[in-house]
Protein backbone atom coordinates (compact mmCIF):
# COMPACT_ATOMS: atom_id res chain seq x y z
CA UNK A 1 0.00 0.00 0.00
CA UNK A 2 1.39 3.32 -1.03
CA UNK A 3 1.10 5.81 1.79
CA UNK A 4 3.77 8.34 0.94
CA UNK A 5 2.53 11.34 -0.99
CA UNK A 6 3.96 12.07 -4.42
CA UNK A 7 6.99 14.37 -4.33
CA UNK A 8 6.05 17.99 -3.82
CA UNK A 9 6.98 19.76 -7.01
CA UNK A 10 6.32 23.29 -8.02
CA UNK A 11 3.77 23.40 -10.80
CA UNK A 12 2.91 26.33 -12.96
CA UNK A 13 -0.71 27.20 -12.45
CA UNK A 14 -1.01 30.31 -14.53
CA UNK A 15 -0.10 30.86 -18.11
CA UNK A 16 3.31 32.40 -18.36
CA UNK A 17 2.43 35.57 -20.18
CA UNK A 18 1.75 39.11 -19.15
CA UNK A 19 -1.35 39.40 -21.31
CA UNK A 20 -4.34 40.72 -19.38
CA UNK A 21 -7.47 38.62 -18.90
CA UNK A 22 -9.56 39.31 -21.97
CA UNK A 23 -13.31 38.87 -22.26
CA UNK A 24 -15.89 39.81 -24.87
CA UNK A 25 -19.56 40.23 -24.03
CA UNK A 26 -22.19 40.37 -26.75
CA UNK A 27 -25.61 41.93 -26.14
CA UNK A 28 -28.05 41.12 -28.95
CA UNK A 29 -31.56 42.55 -28.78
CA UNK A 30 -34.95 42.59 -30.39
CA UNK A 31 -37.37 45.33 -29.40
CA UNK A 32 -41.00 46.37 -29.81
CA UNK A 33 -42.75 49.64 -28.96
CA UNK A 34 -46.47 50.30 -29.46
CA UNK A 35 -46.09 53.96 -30.42
CA UNK A 36 -44.36 55.75 -33.32
CA UNK A 37 -43.52 54.67 -36.87
CA UNK A 38 -40.96 51.98 -36.30
CA UNK A 39 -42.28 49.36 -33.96
CA UNK A 40 -39.86 46.44 -34.34
CA UNK A 41 -36.10 46.32 -34.36
CA UNK A 42 -33.25 43.82 -34.15
CA UNK A 43 -29.72 44.88 -33.30
CA UNK A 44 -26.45 44.05 -31.63
CA UNK A 45 -26.82 46.58 -28.85
CA UNK A 46 -23.33 46.42 -27.47
CA UNK A 47 -20.07 44.55 -27.67
CA UNK A 48 -18.01 44.99 -24.54
CA UNK A 49 -14.34 44.07 -24.43
CA UNK A 50 -12.79 43.76 -20.99
CA UNK A 51 -9.04 43.81 -20.33
CA UNK A 52 -7.98 43.26 -16.74
CA UNK A 53 -4.66 42.62 -15.04
CA UNK A 54 -2.42 43.55 -12.17
CA UNK A 55 -0.09 46.40 -13.11
CA UNK A 56 2.61 45.88 -10.47
CA UNK A 57 2.68 45.11 -6.74
CA UNK A 58 0.91 48.39 -6.10
CA UNK A 59 -2.03 48.50 -8.48
CA UNK A 60 -4.37 46.70 -10.85
CA UNK A 61 -6.00 48.05 -14.00
CA UNK A 62 -9.41 47.39 -15.53
CA UNK A 63 -10.54 48.49 -18.97
CA UNK A 64 -13.98 48.03 -20.47
CA UNK A 65 -14.27 49.14 -24.09
CA UNK A 66 -17.77 49.39 -25.43
CA UNK A 67 -18.64 49.12 -29.11
CA UNK A 68 -22.17 50.43 -29.05
CA UNK A 69 -24.87 51.47 -31.50
CA UNK A 70 -26.13 55.01 -31.53
CA UNK A 71 -29.93 54.58 -31.38
CA UNK A 72 -30.47 57.71 -33.51
CA UNK A 73 -28.03 57.17 -36.38
CA UNK A 74 -27.63 53.40 -36.17
CA UNK A 75 -23.85 53.88 -36.44
CA UNK A 76 -21.43 52.04 -34.19
CA UNK A 77 -19.00 53.93 -32.05
CA UNK A 78 -16.29 53.01 -29.58
CA UNK A 79 -16.30 54.31 -26.07
CA UNK A 80 -14.15 53.69 -23.03
CA UNK A 81 -16.95 52.52 -20.80
CA UNK A 82 -14.56 52.34 -17.88
CA UNK A 83 -10.78 52.50 -17.61
CA UNK A 84 -9.20 52.83 -14.20
CA UNK A 85 -6.34 51.99 -11.92
CA UNK A 86 -7.00 50.62 -8.43
CA UNK A 87 -4.36 50.70 -5.72
CA UNK A 88 -3.63 47.47 -3.85
CA UNK A 89 -1.36 48.60 -1.08
CA UNK A 90 -2.57 51.82 0.52
CA UNK A 91 -2.47 51.82 4.33
CA UNK A 92 -5.40 52.40 6.70
CA UNK A 93 -7.87 50.30 4.67
CA UNK A 94 -7.91 52.86 1.92
CA UNK A 95 -8.25 52.17 -1.78
CA UNK A 96 -7.83 54.75 -4.50
CA UNK A 97 -9.21 54.52 -8.00
CA UNK A 98 -8.15 56.85 -10.81
CA UNK A 99 -9.52 57.07 -14.33
CA UNK A 100 -12.97 56.77 -15.83
CA UNK A 101 -15.43 54.75 -13.79
CA UNK A 102 -19.10 54.32 -12.96
CA UNK A 103 -19.91 56.71 -10.11
CA UNK A 104 -20.77 55.16 -6.75
CA UNK A 105 -24.46 56.04 -6.95
CA UNK A 106 -26.98 53.57 -5.53
CA UNK A 107 -26.95 50.01 -6.85
CA UNK A 108 -27.92 50.07 -10.52
CA UNK A 109 -25.35 52.64 -11.63
CA UNK A 110 -22.34 50.57 -10.61
CA UNK A 111 -23.50 47.45 -12.44
CA UNK A 112 -22.82 46.89 -16.13
CA UNK A 113 -26.23 46.68 -17.86
CA UNK A 114 -25.70 43.08 -19.08
CA UNK A 115 -25.59 41.93 -15.46
CA UNK A 116 -28.92 43.52 -14.49
CA UNK A 117 -31.99 41.27 -14.20
CA UNK A 118 -34.03 43.51 -16.56
CA UNK A 119 -33.37 44.98 -19.99
CA UNK A 120 -34.63 48.58 -19.84
CA UNK A 121 -33.09 50.93 -17.30
CA UNK A 122 -35.39 52.34 -14.56
CA UNK A 123 -37.28 55.47 -15.73
CA UNK A 124 -36.12 57.69 -12.89
CA UNK A 125 -32.53 56.60 -13.42
CA UNK A 126 -32.72 57.45 -17.14
CA UNK A 127 -34.32 60.83 -16.38
CA UNK A 128 -31.42 61.85 -14.17
CA UNK A 129 -28.42 60.01 -15.56
CA UNK A 130 -29.39 58.96 -19.10
CA UNK A 131 -29.42 55.44 -20.59
CA UNK A 132 -25.66 55.13 -20.09
CA UNK A 133 -25.71 56.17 -16.44
CA UNK A 134 -23.38 58.40 -14.47
CA UNK A 135 -19.77 57.58 -15.26
CA UNK A 136 -17.07 60.15 -15.08
CA UNK A 137 -13.38 60.83 -14.98
CA UNK A 138 -11.52 61.57 -11.79
CA UNK A 139 -10.55 60.05 -8.46
CA UNK A 140 -12.37 57.77 -6.08
CA UNK A 141 -11.23 57.12 -2.53
CA UNK A 142 -12.79 54.32 -0.55
CA UNK A 143 -12.35 53.64 3.13
CA UNK A 144 -13.36 50.42 4.84
CA UNK A 145 -14.64 51.46 8.26
CA UNK A 146 -13.36 49.44 11.21
CA UNK A 147 -16.94 48.54 12.18
CA UNK A 148 -16.95 44.95 13.40
CA UNK A 149 -20.66 44.19 13.59
CA UNK A 150 -21.36 44.81 9.92
CA UNK A 151 -19.65 45.90 6.70
CA UNK A 152 -19.34 49.62 6.17
CA UNK A 153 -17.58 51.35 3.30
CA UNK A 154 -17.35 55.07 2.67
CA UNK A 155 -16.57 56.36 -0.82
CA UNK A 156 -15.73 59.85 -1.91
CA UNK A 157 -15.35 60.70 -5.57
CA UNK A 158 -14.27 63.87 -7.32
CA UNK A 159 -14.77 63.91 -11.06
CA UNK A 160 -14.54 66.42 -13.86
CA UNK A 161 -18.12 66.26 -15.10
CA UNK A 162 -17.46 64.73 -18.54
CA UNK A 163 -20.44 62.46 -18.04
CA UNK A 164 -23.24 63.59 -20.32
CA UNK A 165 -26.21 63.12 -18.06
CA UNK A 166 -29.46 65.12 -17.92
CA UNK A 167 -28.92 66.11 -14.29
CA UNK A 168 -25.21 66.97 -14.43
CA UNK A 169 -23.01 68.57 -17.08
CA UNK A 170 -19.38 69.59 -17.48
CA UNK A 171 -18.77 73.01 -16.04
CA UNK A 172 -17.30 75.70 -18.26
CA UNK A 173 -15.79 77.04 -15.08
CA UNK A 174 -14.00 75.14 -12.36
CA UNK A 175 -16.90 73.32 -10.76
CA UNK A 176 -16.40 69.61 -10.19
CA UNK A 177 -18.79 66.75 -9.55
CA UNK A 178 -18.70 65.30 -6.02
CA UNK A 179 -20.16 61.96 -5.02
CA UNK A 180 -20.25 60.54 -1.50
CA UNK A 181 -21.57 57.03 -0.83
CA UNK A 182 -21.96 55.10 2.41
CA UNK A 183 -22.53 51.38 1.96
CA UNK A 184 -23.87 49.38 4.91
CA UNK A 185 -24.14 45.63 4.56
CA UNK A 186 -25.80 43.50 7.23
CA UNK A 187 -25.70 39.72 7.40
CA UNK A 188 -29.02 38.91 9.08
CA UNK A 189 -28.16 35.20 9.05
CA UNK A 190 -26.51 32.77 6.63
CA UNK A 191 -29.38 33.01 4.17
CA UNK A 192 -30.56 36.62 4.52
CA UNK A 193 -28.72 39.89 3.94
CA UNK A 194 -29.67 43.54 3.86
CA UNK A 195 -27.84 46.42 2.23
CA UNK A 196 -28.58 50.07 2.85
CA UNK A 197 -26.79 52.71 0.79
CA UNK A 198 -26.83 56.47 1.08
CA UNK A 199 -25.52 58.64 -1.74
CA UNK A 200 -25.07 62.39 -2.06
CA UNK A 201 -24.17 64.03 -5.38
CA UNK A 202 -23.41 67.66 -6.05
CA UNK A 203 -22.25 69.06 -9.35
CA UNK A 204 -22.71 71.55 -12.15
CA UNK A 205 -25.78 71.30 -14.41
CA UNK A 206 -26.32 72.58 -17.93
CA UNK A 207 -27.76 75.84 -16.58
CA UNK A 208 -24.25 76.58 -15.26
CA UNK A 209 -25.61 76.21 -11.76
CA UNK A 210 -25.53 73.41 -9.22
CA UNK A 211 -27.70 70.31 -8.95
CA UNK A 212 -27.85 68.31 -5.75
CA UNK A 213 -29.12 64.77 -5.40
CA UNK A 214 -29.75 62.32 -2.63
CA UNK A 215 -30.13 58.61 -3.39
CA UNK A 216 -31.21 55.90 -0.96
CA UNK A 217 -30.88 52.23 -1.93
CA UNK A 218 -32.22 49.24 -0.03
CA UNK A 219 -31.54 45.65 -1.07
CA UNK A 220 -32.79 42.56 0.69
CA UNK A 221 -31.55 39.15 -0.45
CA UNK A 222 -32.59 35.67 0.47
CA UNK A 223 -30.20 33.08 -0.82
CA UNK A 224 -30.20 29.77 1.02
CA UNK A 225 -26.54 28.81 1.42
CA UNK A 226 -27.13 25.12 0.83
CA UNK A 227 -29.11 25.27 -2.40
CA UNK A 228 -28.04 28.74 -3.51
CA UNK A 229 -27.90 27.79 -7.16
CA UNK A 230 -31.57 26.77 -7.25
CA UNK A 231 -33.67 29.37 -5.41
CA UNK A 232 -33.13 32.97 -4.39
CA UNK A 233 -34.96 36.23 -3.97
CA UNK A 234 -33.79 39.81 -4.32
CA UNK A 235 -35.85 42.87 -3.45
CA UNK A 236 -34.08 46.04 -4.46
CA UNK A 237 -35.33 49.64 -4.41
CA UNK A 238 -33.75 53.02 -5.06
CA UNK A 239 -35.16 56.45 -4.28
CA UNK A 240 -33.85 59.55 -6.07
CA UNK A 241 -34.30 63.08 -4.70
CA UNK A 242 -33.16 65.81 -7.07
CA UNK A 243 -32.85 69.55 -6.61
CA UNK A 244 -31.73 71.66 -9.56
CA UNK A 245 -30.87 75.31 -9.45
CA UNK A 246 -31.94 76.51 -12.87
CA UNK A 247 -31.97 80.32 -12.67
CA UNK A 248 -31.38 82.91 -10.02
CA UNK A 249 -34.08 82.40 -7.42
CA UNK A 250 -35.58 79.52 -9.39
CA UNK A 251 -35.05 75.88 -8.68
CA UNK A 252 -36.87 72.61 -9.22
CA UNK A 253 -37.17 69.56 -6.98
CA UNK A 254 -38.23 66.20 -8.27
CA UNK A 255 -38.46 62.61 -7.14
CA UNK A 256 -38.24 59.19 -8.71
CA UNK A 257 -37.91 55.57 -7.64
CA UNK A 258 -37.92 51.98 -8.76
CA UNK A 259 -38.45 48.77 -6.91
CA UNK A 260 -37.96 45.26 -8.24
CA UNK A 261 -38.35 41.74 -6.94
CA UNK A 262 -36.39 38.98 -8.61
CA UNK A 263 -37.29 35.41 -7.81
CA UNK A 264 -35.29 32.42 -8.94
CA UNK A 265 -37.78 29.69 -9.81
CA UNK A 266 -35.25 26.99 -10.66
CA UNK A 267 -31.55 26.64 -11.38
CA UNK A 268 -31.82 28.44 -14.72
CA UNK A 269 -35.11 30.38 -14.45
CA UNK A 270 -35.54 33.88 -13.05
CA UNK A 271 -38.61 36.12 -12.93
CA UNK A 272 -38.33 39.84 -12.21
CA UNK A 273 -41.18 42.31 -11.62
CA UNK A 274 -40.33 46.02 -11.51
CA UNK A 275 -42.29 49.15 -10.69
CA UNK A 276 -41.10 52.57 -11.86
CA UNK A 277 -42.20 56.01 -10.75
CA UNK A 278 -40.54 59.13 -12.10
CA UNK A 279 -41.14 62.85 -12.18
CA UNK A 280 -39.42 64.64 -15.04
CA UNK A 281 -36.50 66.65 -13.61
CA UNK A 282 -37.38 69.71 -15.72
CA UNK A 283 -41.12 69.56 -14.95
CA UNK A 284 -42.23 67.57 -11.96
CA UNK A 285 -45.87 67.73 -12.97
CA UNK A 286 -45.06 65.14 -15.67
CA UNK A 287 -45.19 61.79 -13.95
CA UNK A 288 -44.38 58.36 -15.32
CA UNK A 289 -45.71 55.11 -13.90
CA UNK A 290 -44.48 51.84 -15.36
CA UNK A 291 -44.71 48.14 -14.64
CA UNK A 292 -42.49 45.52 -16.22
CA UNK A 293 -41.99 41.79 -16.05
CA UNK A 294 -38.82 39.98 -17.16
CA UNK A 295 -38.34 36.25 -17.59
CA UNK A 296 -34.73 35.09 -17.77
CA UNK A 297 -33.25 31.77 -18.79
CA UNK A 298 -29.64 31.59 -17.61
CA UNK A 299 -28.23 28.77 -19.74
CA UNK A 300 -24.82 28.81 -18.09
CA UNK A 301 -22.59 31.35 -16.38
CA UNK A 302 -21.69 32.49 -19.89
CA UNK A 303 -25.01 33.07 -21.62
CA UNK A 304 -28.53 34.12 -20.75
CA UNK A 305 -31.71 34.88 -22.65
CA UNK A 306 -34.26 37.37 -21.31
CA UNK A 307 -37.69 38.61 -22.36
CA UNK A 308 -39.27 41.72 -20.87
CA UNK A 309 -42.62 43.44 -21.31
CA UNK A 310 -43.36 46.91 -19.98
CA UNK A 311 -46.42 49.15 -19.67
CA UNK A 312 -45.87 52.88 -19.25
CA UNK A 313 -48.40 55.55 -18.30
CA UNK A 314 -47.70 59.24 -18.06
CA UNK A 315 -50.06 62.15 -17.68
CA UNK A 316 -49.37 63.53 -21.20
CA UNK A 317 -49.49 60.69 -23.73
CA UNK A 318 -51.69 57.66 -23.78
CA UNK A 319 -50.45 54.39 -22.34
CA UNK A 320 -47.81 52.57 -24.40
CA UNK A 321 -46.28 49.11 -24.37
CA UNK A 322 -42.76 47.87 -24.93
CA UNK A 323 -41.10 44.49 -25.18
CA UNK A 324 -37.51 43.37 -25.52
CA UNK A 325 -35.61 40.19 -26.10
CA UNK A 326 -31.99 40.14 -25.01
CA UNK A 327 -29.30 37.55 -25.50
CA UNK A 328 -26.11 38.04 -23.49
CA UNK A 329 -23.09 35.88 -24.29
CA UNK A 330 -19.55 35.90 -22.98
CA UNK A 331 -16.31 34.50 -24.32
CA UNK A 332 -12.95 34.54 -22.60
CA UNK A 333 -12.45 35.72 -19.05
CA UNK A 334 -15.55 36.65 -17.12
CA UNK A 335 -15.09 38.69 -13.96
CA UNK A 336 -17.11 38.11 -10.81
CA UNK A 337 -20.25 40.10 -10.20
CA UNK A 338 -20.84 42.08 -7.05
CA UNK A 339 -23.19 40.61 -4.44
Amino acid sequence: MKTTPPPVTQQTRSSLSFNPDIGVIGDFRGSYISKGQKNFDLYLNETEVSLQATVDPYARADFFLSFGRDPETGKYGVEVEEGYLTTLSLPARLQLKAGRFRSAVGRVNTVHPHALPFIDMPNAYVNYFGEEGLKDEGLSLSWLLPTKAFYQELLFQVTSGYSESPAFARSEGNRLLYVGHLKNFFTLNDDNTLELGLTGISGPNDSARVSNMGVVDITYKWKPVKLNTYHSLTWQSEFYFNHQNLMDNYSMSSFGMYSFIQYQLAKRWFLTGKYDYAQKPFDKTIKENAFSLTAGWYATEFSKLEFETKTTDDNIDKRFYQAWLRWIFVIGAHGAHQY
Partner: protein
Amino acid sequence: MKKISILSLFFFCISFFSFADTIKIVTTTSDMKSIAEFVGGNKVSVTSIATGYQNPHFVDPKPSYIISLTKANLFVTVGLDLETGWSPQLLSSSRNTKIQKGSSGYVDASEGVNLLQVPTAANRAEGDIHIYGNPHYWLDPLNGKIIARNIANGLERVDPSNKSFYEANLVSFNNKIDLKLKEWQGKMAAYKGSKIIAYHNEWVYFETRFGLQIVDFMEPKPGIPPTPSQLVKVIKEVTANKIKVIISSPYFTTSSSDVVSKQTGVKELTMATSVGAFDSVKDYFSLFDYNIDNLITALK
Protein backbone atom coordinates in the same frame (compact mmCIF):
# COMPACT_ATOMS: atom_id res chain seq x y z
CA MET B 1 -4.66 33.83 49.01
CA LYS B 2 -2.65 36.67 47.56
CA LYS B 3 -0.36 34.14 45.91
CA ILE B 4 -3.28 32.48 44.22
CA SER B 5 -4.66 35.70 42.84
CA ILE B 6 -1.26 36.76 41.51
CA LEU B 7 -0.86 33.36 39.97
CA SER B 8 -4.27 33.49 38.37
CA LEU B 9 -3.55 36.98 37.10
CA PHE B 10 -0.32 35.66 35.63
CA PHE B 11 -2.14 32.84 33.85
CA PHE B 12 -4.83 35.24 32.75
CA CYS B 13 -2.16 37.43 31.17
CA ILE B 14 -0.55 34.45 29.48
CA SER B 15 -3.84 33.24 28.07
CA PHE B 16 -4.76 36.78 27.07
CA PHE B 17 -1.52 37.35 25.23
CA SER B 18 -1.48 33.95 23.64
CA PHE B 19 -5.00 34.69 22.37
CA ALA B 20 -3.91 38.08 21.13
CA ASP B 21 -0.96 36.49 19.37
CA THR B 22 -2.88 33.82 17.48
CA ILE B 23 -2.30 33.76 13.75
CA LYS B 24 -5.57 34.59 12.03
CA ILE B 25 -6.22 32.25 9.13
CA VAL B 26 -9.06 32.63 6.64
CA THR B 27 -9.67 29.65 4.38
CA THR B 28 -12.00 29.46 1.41
CA THR B 29 -13.45 26.07 2.40
CA SER B 30 -14.08 24.12 5.57
CA ASP B 31 -11.67 21.31 4.59
CA MET B 32 -8.80 23.77 4.45
CA LYS B 33 -9.97 25.11 7.83
CA SER B 34 -9.94 21.66 9.41
CA ILE B 35 -6.43 20.87 8.17
CA ALA B 36 -5.18 24.35 9.18
CA GLU B 37 -6.50 23.68 12.69
CA PHE B 38 -4.58 20.40 12.88
CA VAL B 39 -1.36 22.07 11.75
CA GLY B 40 -1.76 25.35 13.62
CA GLY B 41 -3.13 23.96 16.89
CA ASN B 42 -3.68 26.57 19.58
CA LYS B 43 -1.42 29.05 17.81
CA VAL B 44 -4.05 29.85 15.21
CA SER B 45 -7.69 30.90 14.92
CA VAL B 46 -9.29 29.79 11.68
CA THR B 47 -12.44 30.86 9.87
CA SER B 48 -13.76 29.46 6.62
CA ILE B 49 -15.73 31.49 4.10
CA ALA B 50 -17.73 28.61 2.62
CA THR B 51 -19.70 26.20 4.76
CA GLY B 52 -19.36 22.46 4.30
CA TYR B 53 -22.78 22.06 2.69
CA GLN B 54 -22.27 24.75 0.09
CA ASN B 55 -21.18 24.41 -3.54
CA PRO B 56 -17.59 25.75 -3.46
CA HIS B 57 -17.84 26.89 -7.09
CA PHE B 58 -20.72 29.24 -6.37
CA VAL B 59 -20.16 31.03 -3.08
CA ASP B 60 -21.71 34.49 -3.05
CA PRO B 61 -19.03 37.12 -2.41
CA LYS B 62 -20.85 38.84 0.45
CA PRO B 63 -19.06 42.01 1.63
CA SER B 64 -19.28 40.70 5.19
CA TYR B 65 -16.55 38.13 4.35
CA ILE B 66 -14.20 41.05 3.69
CA ILE B 67 -14.24 41.98 7.40
CA SER B 68 -12.38 38.81 8.43
CA LEU B 69 -10.02 39.05 5.43
CA THR B 70 -8.87 42.56 6.37
CA LYS B 71 -7.34 41.21 9.59
CA ALA B 72 -6.08 37.83 8.34
CA ASN B 73 -2.40 36.84 8.57
CA LEU B 74 -2.84 33.86 6.29
CA PHE B 75 -5.24 33.08 3.45
CA VAL B 76 -5.64 29.49 2.26
CA THR B 77 -7.26 28.71 -1.08
CA VAL B 78 -8.05 25.36 -2.72
CA GLY B 79 -6.88 26.95 -5.98
CA LEU B 80 -7.08 25.57 -9.52
CA ASP B 81 -9.83 28.09 -10.29
CA LEU B 82 -12.29 26.33 -7.94
CA GLU B 83 -13.07 29.67 -6.27
CA THR B 84 -12.45 31.86 -9.32
CA GLY B 85 -15.98 33.31 -9.25
CA TRP B 86 -15.67 34.77 -5.78
CA SER B 87 -12.34 34.67 -3.93
CA PRO B 88 -10.23 37.02 -6.13
CA GLN B 89 -12.87 39.73 -5.74
CA LEU B 90 -12.99 39.33 -1.96
CA LEU B 91 -9.22 39.27 -1.74
CA SER B 92 -8.68 42.49 -3.69
CA SER B 93 -11.45 44.21 -1.70
CA SER B 94 -9.79 43.24 1.60
CA ARG B 95 -7.03 45.87 1.19
CA ASN B 96 -4.83 43.42 3.09
CA THR B 97 -1.46 43.32 1.30
CA LYS B 98 -0.21 40.44 3.47
CA ILE B 99 -2.57 37.89 1.90
CA GLN B 100 -2.58 38.87 -1.77
CA LYS B 101 -1.45 36.33 -4.36
CA GLY B 102 2.35 36.20 -4.24
CA SER B 103 2.56 37.57 -0.69
CA SER B 104 3.89 35.51 2.21
CA GLY B 105 0.40 35.11 3.69
CA TYR B 106 -1.11 33.55 0.55
CA VAL B 107 -1.30 29.75 0.45
CA ASP B 108 -2.40 27.86 -2.64
CA ALA B 109 -3.03 24.46 -1.09
CA SER B 110 -2.91 22.71 -4.46
CA GLU B 111 0.82 23.28 -4.95
CA GLY B 112 2.46 19.95 -5.59
CA VAL B 113 -0.76 17.94 -5.93
CA ASN B 114 -0.69 15.32 -8.66
CA LEU B 115 -3.60 16.60 -10.71
CA LEU B 116 -6.14 14.44 -12.47
CA GLN B 117 -8.26 15.23 -15.53
CA VAL B 118 -6.08 18.06 -16.81
CA PRO B 119 -7.77 18.99 -20.10
CA THR B 120 -5.73 19.05 -23.28
CA ALA B 121 -7.76 21.98 -24.62
CA ALA B 122 -9.75 24.75 -22.95
CA ASN B 123 -13.19 24.56 -24.55
CA ARG B 124 -16.37 25.68 -22.80
CA ALA B 125 -18.42 23.44 -25.09
CA GLU B 126 -17.38 20.76 -22.58
CA GLY B 127 -19.24 22.57 -19.76
CA ASP B 128 -17.59 23.89 -16.60
CA ILE B 129 -14.14 22.47 -17.14
CA HIS B 130 -11.15 23.49 -15.09
CA ILE B 131 -8.14 24.29 -17.21
CA TYR B 132 -5.62 23.28 -14.53
CA GLY B 133 -7.29 19.95 -13.77
CA ASN B 134 -10.07 18.66 -11.51
CA PRO B 135 -9.97 20.87 -8.37
CA HIS B 136 -11.67 18.47 -5.90
CA TYR B 137 -8.32 17.01 -4.84
CA TRP B 138 -8.92 17.20 -1.06
CA LEU B 139 -11.16 14.13 -1.41
CA ASP B 140 -8.03 11.96 -1.57
CA PRO B 141 -6.70 11.73 2.02
CA LEU B 142 -3.12 11.56 0.75
CA ASN B 143 -3.59 14.97 -0.82
CA GLY B 144 -4.56 16.09 2.70
CA LYS B 145 -0.87 15.66 3.55
CA ILE B 146 0.16 17.99 0.70
CA ILE B 147 -2.44 20.55 1.81
CA ALA B 148 -1.08 20.32 5.36
CA ARG B 149 2.50 20.77 4.10
CA ASN B 150 1.49 23.88 2.13
CA ILE B 151 -0.36 25.34 5.12
CA ALA B 152 2.63 24.60 7.38
CA ASN B 153 4.91 26.36 4.88
CA GLY B 154 2.61 29.39 4.98
CA LEU B 155 2.46 29.40 8.77
CA GLU B 156 6.24 29.15 8.99
CA ARG B 157 6.57 32.13 6.65
CA VAL B 158 4.32 34.37 8.72
CA ASP B 159 5.23 32.94 12.14
CA PRO B 160 8.77 31.49 11.91
CA SER B 161 9.24 31.43 15.70
CA ASN B 162 6.79 28.53 16.02
CA LYS B 163 8.24 26.47 13.18
CA SER B 164 9.04 23.44 15.34
CA PHE B 165 5.51 23.46 16.77
CA TYR B 166 3.96 23.42 13.28
CA GLU B 167 6.37 20.76 12.08
CA ALA B 168 5.49 18.53 15.05
CA ASN B 169 1.77 18.96 14.35
CA LEU B 170 2.37 18.19 10.70
CA VAL B 171 4.11 14.93 11.58
CA SER B 172 1.27 13.81 13.85
CA PHE B 173 -1.33 14.81 11.21
CA ASN B 174 0.52 12.80 8.55
CA ASN B 175 0.84 9.81 10.89
CA LYS B 176 -2.88 9.91 11.59
CA ILE B 177 -3.61 10.06 7.86
CA ASP B 178 -1.41 6.99 7.27
CA LEU B 179 -3.10 5.13 10.08
CA LYS B 180 -6.64 6.05 9.03
CA LEU B 181 -5.94 5.40 5.36
CA LYS B 182 -5.08 1.79 6.20
CA GLU B 183 -8.40 1.50 8.03
CA TRP B 184 -10.37 3.12 5.19
CA GLN B 185 -8.71 1.08 2.47
CA GLY B 186 -9.25 -2.05 4.53
CA LYS B 187 -12.96 -1.32 4.76
CA MET B 188 -13.19 -0.54 1.05
CA ALA B 189 -11.12 -3.53 -0.11
CA ALA B 190 -14.20 -5.71 -0.56
CA TYR B 191 -15.81 -3.11 -2.78
CA LYS B 192 -12.88 -2.42 -5.10
CA GLY B 193 -14.02 -1.93 -8.68
CA SER B 194 -17.63 -1.16 -7.64
CA LYS B 195 -19.41 0.76 -10.36
CA ILE B 196 -21.34 3.86 -9.31
CA ILE B 197 -23.00 6.94 -10.82
CA ALA B 198 -22.20 10.45 -9.52
CA TYR B 199 -24.17 13.66 -9.91
CA HIS B 200 -21.22 15.97 -10.66
CA ASN B 201 -17.63 15.27 -11.66
CA GLU B 202 -16.12 15.94 -8.23
CA TRP B 203 -15.17 12.46 -6.99
CA VAL B 204 -12.29 11.49 -9.25
CA TYR B 205 -9.64 11.71 -6.49
CA PHE B 206 -11.82 9.72 -4.06
CA GLU B 207 -12.66 7.22 -6.81
CA THR B 208 -9.00 6.71 -7.70
CA ARG B 209 -7.79 6.34 -4.11
CA PHE B 210 -10.46 3.84 -3.09
CA GLY B 211 -10.69 1.89 -6.35
CA LEU B 212 -14.22 2.77 -7.34
CA GLN B 213 -15.43 3.15 -10.92
CA ILE B 214 -17.68 6.07 -11.78
CA VAL B 215 -19.51 4.98 -14.90
CA ASP B 216 -21.37 8.22 -15.66
CA PHE B 217 -22.71 11.46 -14.23
CA MET B 218 -26.24 12.77 -13.80
CA GLU B 219 -25.04 16.00 -15.38
CA PRO B 220 -24.53 15.49 -19.13
CA LYS B 221 -21.60 17.93 -18.90
CA PRO B 222 -20.14 19.52 -15.77
CA GLY B 223 -22.47 22.33 -14.61
CA ILE B 224 -25.27 21.47 -17.07
CA PRO B 225 -28.39 20.21 -15.21
CA PRO B 226 -29.55 16.64 -16.01
CA THR B 227 -31.52 16.39 -19.26
CA PRO B 228 -34.21 13.77 -20.08
CA SER B 229 -31.87 12.06 -22.57
CA GLN B 230 -29.12 11.86 -19.95
CA LEU B 231 -31.59 10.25 -17.51
CA VAL B 232 -32.50 7.64 -20.12
CA LYS B 233 -28.78 6.95 -20.68
CA VAL B 234 -28.12 6.65 -16.94
CA ILE B 235 -31.10 4.33 -16.43
CA LYS B 236 -29.71 2.02 -19.14
CA GLU B 237 -26.24 2.10 -17.57
CA VAL B 238 -27.60 1.38 -14.09
CA THR B 239 -29.48 -1.66 -15.38
CA ALA B 240 -26.68 -2.94 -17.61
CA ASN B 241 -23.97 -2.65 -14.93
CA LYS B 242 -26.17 -3.57 -11.94
CA ILE B 243 -25.14 -0.29 -10.32
CA LYS B 244 -26.17 -0.05 -6.68
CA VAL B 245 -25.79 3.61 -5.84
CA ILE B 246 -25.91 7.18 -7.21
CA ILE B 247 -23.76 9.53 -5.14
CA SER B 248 -24.52 13.22 -4.89
CA SER B 249 -23.63 16.26 -2.77
CA PRO B 250 -25.66 18.30 -0.26
CA TYR B 251 -25.97 21.25 -2.66
CA PHE B 252 -27.60 19.39 -5.57
CA THR B 253 -31.28 18.56 -5.77
CA THR B 254 -32.17 14.89 -5.89
CA SER B 255 -35.16 15.24 -8.25
CA SER B 256 -33.35 13.67 -11.24
CA SER B 257 -31.73 10.82 -9.31
CA ASP B 258 -35.14 10.19 -7.70
CA VAL B 259 -36.44 9.41 -11.20
CA VAL B 260 -33.60 6.97 -11.89
CA SER B 261 -34.05 5.40 -8.47
CA LYS B 262 -37.78 4.92 -9.02
CA GLN B 263 -37.18 3.30 -12.39
CA THR B 264 -34.31 1.01 -11.40
CA GLY B 265 -34.32 0.68 -7.62
CA VAL B 266 -30.78 2.12 -7.41
CA LYS B 267 -29.98 3.68 -4.02
CA GLU B 268 -29.29 7.39 -3.62
CA LEU B 269 -26.57 8.60 -1.28
CA THR B 270 -25.72 12.18 -0.45
CA MET B 271 -22.02 12.12 0.40
CA ALA B 272 -20.09 14.75 2.32
CA THR B 273 -18.00 16.79 -0.10
CA SER B 274 -16.56 18.91 2.70
CA VAL B 275 -16.14 19.06 6.46
CA GLY B 276 -19.41 20.29 8.00
CA ALA B 277 -21.61 18.86 5.25
CA PHE B 278 -23.47 17.00 7.99
CA ASP B 279 -23.40 17.42 11.77
CA SER B 280 -21.27 14.31 12.29
CA VAL B 281 -18.63 15.41 9.78
CA LYS B 282 -16.63 17.49 12.23
CA ASP B 283 -13.13 17.32 10.77
CA TYR B 284 -11.04 16.08 7.84
CA PHE B 285 -10.93 12.54 9.25
CA SER B 286 -14.63 12.21 9.94
CA LEU B 287 -15.22 13.38 6.35
CA PHE B 288 -13.79 10.06 5.11
CA ASP B 289 -15.28 8.07 8.01
CA TYR B 290 -18.73 9.32 7.03
CA ASN B 291 -18.32 8.78 3.31
CA ILE B 292 -16.77 5.33 3.54
CA ASP B 293 -19.22 3.98 6.14
CA ASN B 294 -22.24 5.24 4.21
CA LEU B 295 -20.91 4.12 0.86
CA ILE B 296 -20.27 0.61 2.18
CA THR B 297 -23.81 0.43 3.58
CA ALA B 298 -25.14 1.43 0.15
CA LEU B 299 -22.89 -1.02 -1.74
CA LYS B 300 -23.70 -3.99 0.49
